[in-house]
């Protein structure tokens, strides 16, 4: 069964890149253009993994994370940030992000991390 990935970012060109990358790897891709939309889409139809940009209009990635983490403990979340501040990393981890990727990222590495997380969750559900 194909895994579903939600890309939440407000930069159209980054969305284009990520969408192409994830589709090429064989995932089903959903796109949200801001935090509020991302939250709505997760609540309506939870994906397997979210690529969550930290800085988005309406709701920041941190706010989205904070809102969904308690209700969706098994959902895999990778935070994306262009700020690269240590405080942001800590904040993301404290709020329960599974991984953290700093922009600009290596596409190979990102794909690898995504697979790793999804394999984990697959293993978890199988046992």
């Amino acid at each position, binding site marked *: 069964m194909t895994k579903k990935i939600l890309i939440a970012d*407000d*930069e*159209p*060109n*980054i969305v*284009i*890149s*990520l969408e*192409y*990358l994830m589709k*090429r790897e064989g995932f089903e891709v959903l796109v949200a253009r801001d935090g509020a939309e991302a939250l709505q889409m997760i609540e309506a139809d939870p994906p397997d993994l979210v690529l969550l940009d930290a*800085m988005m*209009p309406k709701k920041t990635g941190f706010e989205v994370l904070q809102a969904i983490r308690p209700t969706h403990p098994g959902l895999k979340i990778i935070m994306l940030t*262009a*700020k*690269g*501040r240590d405080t942001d990393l800590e904040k993301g981890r404290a709020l329960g992000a599974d991984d953290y990727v*700093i*922009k*600009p*990222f*290596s*596409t*190979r590495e990102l794909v690898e991390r995504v697979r790793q997380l999804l394999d984990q969750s697959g293993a978890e559900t199988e046992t």
Partner: protein
Amino acid sequence: MTLPVAVVIAVSFAYLGVLFAIAWYGDRRARQGRSIISSPWVYALSIAVYCTAWTYFGSVGRASVEGVWFLPIYLGPMLAMILAWVVIRKMVRIAKTYRITSVADFIASRYGKSPLIAGLVTLITVVGIVPYIALQLKAISAGFGLLTGPSDPTLTETPLHWWQDSTLYMALALAGFIILFGTRHLDMTERHEGMVAAIAFESIVKLVAFLAVGIFVTYGMFNGLGDLFGRAMNDPAMQQLLRFDHGATPHLYSQWFALILLAMLSVLFLPRQFQVMVVENVDERHLKRAAWVFPLYLFLINLFVLPIAIAGLIHFGPGQANPDLFVLSLPLAEGARWLALFVFIGGLSAATGMVIVESIAVSTMICNDLVMPALLKTRRFRGRSGGDLTRLLKSIRRLAIVGLLLLGYLYFYLAGEAYALVSIGLISFAAVAQFAPAALGGMYWKGATGAGVLAGLLVGFGLWIWTLMLPSIAKSGWMATDFLEHGPFGLSLLKPEQLLGLSGLDPITHSLFWSLFGNIAAFVAVSLYTRASAREASQALLFVDVFDRRGGSEPVFWQGQARVDDLVNLSERLLGRDAARRLFQEHARDIGVASIDAIPADARLVQRVETRLAGAIGSASARVMVASAVDEEPLEIDDVMRILEEASQLRAYSQALEDKSRSLERATEELKTANQQLKSLDRLKDDFMSSVTHELRTPLTSIRALTEMMRDDPDMPAAQRQEFLTIIVTESERLSRLVGQVLDLARIEAGHAEWHNSDVDLYAIVKQAMASISSRFEEKGAALELCGDSRLAPLRADADRLVQVMLNLLSNALKVIPAGSGQVVVDLQENSDGVTVTVSDNGPGISKAEQAEVFDKFRQVGDRDQHREGTGLGLPISRQIIEHFGGRMWVESEPGQGATFGFQLPRNQQPVTGKPA
């Protein structure tokens, strides 16, 4: 209807027991350092010792004969408290600073610590106050008689022999009580906390008792105030009581004025008032509360005076009962025996309160200012050795208390019946008023001299005796009254009550006028004609300028040689060992030496010992004692001036020091502010760097991801590859723009930007910018218009920079307007100040909150899609450019109605930053 003697006596003694218990508790708490009187309420209530039996019984008596004339005696103190509290504050400050313990001490200390003046003031006080004490005895004895007596409610009955008179034994009992009350302690201090607590309590008791009888009479016996006053108005005789011109003499208003003035001065200078208000004051700030509580108290206690007087007259009929005792006889007549007993206790309270404070205050004066100076003349008490004197001092005070009460009894026995309560009180008031010129003059006039005071007091007191005291004795039948009617030796000009032919005034007003007139005239005249001695001059400075002194810089007017041992000995003799020890320990601590042995025997020590001794034996006696224990050099006026000069230098130094520390404080404050500014600047810089990082990484992210995907996927369709390459180019352009603008902004902010100034035509610049962007407007189907002035005077500015600003505003507008129906209007207006350019769009507008941030760096407003090419630095840069030319830039917008960005360039610009190229 009467009460058994035993009950009345038992209740009276029980009440005194309660007072004693309160005093004992108050003293105990004071020794533990947890004062119970350190409250403005207690202070204000203790001042109400002003209301004696005279108020309690006599006011009704006076009101029943003379109507509203009982009032001035209470209006005076009310006015004094409200109007003259700053005067009282100065008295308090002086008394505290120099440990002054009585009104005699106050006056004597001011005039060079003169024993002569202290003695004279004390003598006048004793003579003047004895009738007042007699009045209290008279009131208690009359009340007691009425409460227990079989039938005769008047007090004209005199026992055949003095030893049969219960009043004598009452006086002795009171004396014993006061001795227990006020002179228990071995250590001699000028303050009596327990006494003050008890006095505050008795003030409450007498007020409650008086209000109780007032309410009982007004609402129990009659139907309220309206009923009483209504009946009074219907009776022609009583109607007179409610008129202010009742008993009118030709000098009606002078009489009102005289009585009010008399009462004002009394509330300041009666020994007991000085004691509670000045000596016993714990905190100067309490005065502010007392300034309205005490007048309020007087108002309350006088509220029912007229109603009770009218009720008494209606109930008993005029002349049928002693009006001084209406407060007792009315409840008794109604059978309210226990109320009558309570009212009697209230009266007892008023009387004992007065007698306690008055006799403690006056006995201190007698001891310090009459007996001590006499003793000091004998060899035994002078010099540098000798036994402990504290026991002797205490015995003198105790004897003085007994003596005072016996004198009071004697006066009561001899003259008591001839006068109503109020008249006796006024005689005392007039005597005490003689202190006013000396005391008030001394506080505010440095030129007042001791000789002037002696002259004034002698003249005033003499006139008081002649015009008031002797007539009162004569009218009591103890002297022939010839001199009253015809003058001495037939000299009618010297008639005591019509001196120099001044007639038409009542005796009190007449006496007050002449005695105060003579007193002031002699005081001022002699003061002007005599020269103050050095000691007088120095004391005058200390008194008049008391508020100028600050700790440590006080001038010390003493010179000579002293030995610490001698001073220790002297202190031990007069204060007792423990108190003396504490005094020297405190001094050692204050001057910063380790032990008593290390104290230098300098002027400051002598001064301190003398001030402390003044608290125990009065300043005049303390002066004599200290002078006998040390070798002093006489103080000349030159010395006073020199010492004063040194003190003022010291004060100047300390002032300079204070200024210095203040300016240091200011510098610290400034540094703190600067540091905070730096910190917030640092934070701003961090935020800026973080934003720049974000803005640089975002396009790099797309570029890297897309190129990596193209590298990893050689089989990517050509169309896809083409699309990605286009994005890469766009994002690269965005990067270059961003780098360029960041550098630009950094240069402008740091003042390193290059400015190519010339005379520019703003109209041409606007046209140029519009021309270069018009194709993009056409693409979006939007209209771009220009209106306003086209002929503008040239401005000095950088043309390229202004084009940059215009392009920024226009491209921002272009981003927000709707496709197809967009409309942007550029307007140019010239006025005397300069040129204003506005760019208005019909986009969605900007909310108020966002308007505040629109010029912040990287703060992009609105939908992210609208400013794909924006960097978030265009507006901040534009504003920096406009401000560089001395102009300003702003935004106006209502959400939903478009936005207008505008800037104004002044004609006479002064570049804010940067250097002209």
